[in-house]
């Protein structure tokens, strides 16, 4: 199962992640003004929440990372990322 980690200190409570999630995994807690993981079992690991979060507060673990053939290999080597 996908593990979703939310850095509470970084979350600004903008709720964009909760809105974009197609399976309603995330929910907004009005009292805390933060987003929390309501139902991790339904996460499909599309990573839309991770990519859209303006404060990079969300990350995932234990998911199938797709083969990214589109990335430029030379750039990836230089950046030491995406290899």
């Amino acid at each position, binding site marked *: 199962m996908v593990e979703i980690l939310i850095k509470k200190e970084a979350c600004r409570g903008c709720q964009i992640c909760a809105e974009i999630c197609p399976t309603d995994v995330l929910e907004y807690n009005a009292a805390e003004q933060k987003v929390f993981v309501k139902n991790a079992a*339904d996460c499909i690991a599309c990573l839309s929440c991770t990519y859209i979060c303006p404060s990079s507060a969300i990350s995932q673990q234990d998911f199938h990372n*797709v*083969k990214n053939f589109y990335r430029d*290999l030379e750039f990836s080597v230089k950046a030491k990322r995406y290899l």
Partner: protein
Amino acid sequence: MTTDIQDARKKLQQAMNIAPAISCGIEELLGRSANGMTFVAGRKLGKQMTASAKKTTDVEEALAETRRVLEEHHCLWHFEPFIPSTQKEMVKQTEKGAEIMLVFRDCMIRQSLFRYGHHQKGSLCFMMYGFFSGALENIMGKKTELQIVHTGENACLKKLIIGS
């Protein structure tokens, strides 16, 4: 060896630019009609590729057969059924027919769109809709739809509707 892989990757990436470039062009020219055009192209491809596929009326078997056909043709289209926690069965019966949620992970269309820098949920995604429609129509003998629910960076969620 590394150079061979790098060369192969570069050639693949050059080829990956072609389909989204065409898609981008026809969307500009035809607007929303481009989706219909690519749908028909995908449907034809789906029918061609499954011409000798095993016929079945069972949904799970039909999906397995589609997967087998794709692998046989070296197509990178990794999909799996998704059962929401609010649902017990994989197949949900509705007025429209049998509904199944599918998650698409490794997808050659997404890869090509990202390489070229074109948005998702456009005419190329409709080609995939057409492909599944044609393939499952051949295998199951029923009209099918593949609605795009969500397009993500690492996976997409789609709803497959098999007409009753």
